[in-house]
């Protein structure tokens, strides 16, 4: 049976992992390939790098760390942040990523999704959707790292992204991100009910029970978190043990307790 995945996310700026938190300034958390290898050994089912470097010069550095990671951690790697074209996606894949996530550029030009899917296959294209509750009900899509609102409604955009060839959606609740108040399971349920592609839940993880809820209540196929793993508040093993205890299929082979 297909396992529900647990995915540590590494925010990367200028070639280093940084702490993605609202409470303090960006703190250097180490070398991305080093942390990636540690997570792979601890049982991560997949890894996500999000490049949050403000400057375009970060790109060459990103490709270099993607390659060093692919040479050390034999688990799948998804890379996102600032990819704007088929050629840029190709460069990230050639460097050693398995999949690329598109966000702002896909909102600006949705044909980018179909062009990337035609070239590399749907399975290589993840569309990241940052959403927050709209005053009028439902959820609105934000871009530019969750800073700029758009006119898009999140469930409609999820459906369109899947129709255009996205092979997976990475859904982040901006309301919950960094708050450790649990995933937005209503948002997740609304999207997982609307599409047949797998959905990764993101934003708000505080503890193992939240991972369980993202799957059982939200219908998520995979669950992503950053700070609770980086700060070693919980291990991947603890999260998976809680999911297994709740009757969810998880991969326990090779998971360090």
């Amino acid at each position: 049976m297909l396992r529900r995945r647990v995915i540590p996310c590494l925010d990367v700026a200028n070639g280093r992992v940084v702490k993605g938190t609202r409470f303090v300034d960006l703190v250097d958390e180490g070398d991305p390939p080093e942390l990636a290898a540690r997570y792979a050994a601890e049982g991560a089912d997949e890894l996500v790098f999000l490049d949050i470097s403000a400057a375009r010069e970060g790109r060459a550095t990103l490709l270099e760390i993607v390659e060093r990671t692919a040479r050390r951690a034999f688990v799948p790697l998804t890379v996102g942040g600032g990819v704007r074209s088929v050629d840029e996606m190709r460069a990230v894949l050639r460097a050693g990523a398995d999949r690329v996530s598109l966000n702002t550029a896909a909102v600006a030009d949705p044909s980018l999704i179909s062009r990337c899917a035609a070239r590399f296959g749907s399975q290589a294209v993840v569309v990241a959707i940052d959403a927050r509750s709209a005053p009028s009900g439902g959820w609105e899509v934000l871009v530019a790292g969750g800073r700029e609102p758009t006119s898009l409604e999140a469930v409609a955009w999820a459906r369109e992204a899947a129709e255009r060839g996205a092979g997976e959606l990475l859904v982040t609740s901006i309301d919950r991100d960094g708050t450790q108040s649990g995933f937005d399971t209503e948002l997740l349920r609304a999207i997982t009910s609307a599409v047949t592609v797998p959905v990764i839940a993101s934003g708000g993880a505080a503890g193992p029970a939240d991972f369980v809820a993202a799957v059982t209540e939200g219908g998520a196929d995979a669950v992503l978190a950053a700070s609770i793993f980086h700060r070693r508040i919980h291990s991947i093993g603890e999260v998976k043990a809680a999911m297994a205890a709740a009757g969810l299929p998880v991969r326990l082979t090779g998971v360090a307790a």
Partner: protein
Amino acid sequence: MSLSPLVAVVDYGAGNLVSIEQALMAVGARVVLAEDASAMSGADALLVPGVGAAAPAMDRVQRQGLVEPIRRWIADDRPFLGICLGLQLLFEGSDEDGATTLDILPGRTVRLEDAPTLPHIGWNQVERRREHAIFDGIADASDFYFVHSYAGAVADEASDVVLADTTHGQPFVSAIATGALIGVQFHPERSGTDGLRLLSNFVDLVRSGGLATGAGTAATLATSR
């Protein structure tokens, strides 16, 4: 043969070859990326990787003059490993985009039936129908990493090539073996310790000549087709 077999990895322009190259080196192989037939000549084994759709991949394989060299390699019963799309390309054609593929194995590449989600992305159990040295040291029903929506449906007359199944909705063929030909629908290069073990088994079999059993079903199939 050298103690460190040379594996030619077919490079037809898409996707990530870093992982497969690194994984092969980690288990003691030497690797050459083959963009054309000349790069295959000194190799001990041929590996066709790949993800994505069949038609653009076949276009590139054709443009790079690799169709006949790959067919001949398999007809000669030389060690071969097809991964994901590299396995799918061995069948007659693909329902994904109507592409005609290499027509070495009887059967077609078809969409996964009754799948609750597509693409099928993540770790799933590979359940063996029979034993084979490629799985030495790996427990039955171990998890391997998949990322695909289509898989090869082996024709009934060739069902003895099937090595393992996996279920996502309905069961599909996740590994085949016949003579020196091995094919897997999952990604051993992204499947952690068990994936590396499978690649290590392949390299060991290449080194020892253990795949050249003379059984040669693939060679027979390729020659007769």
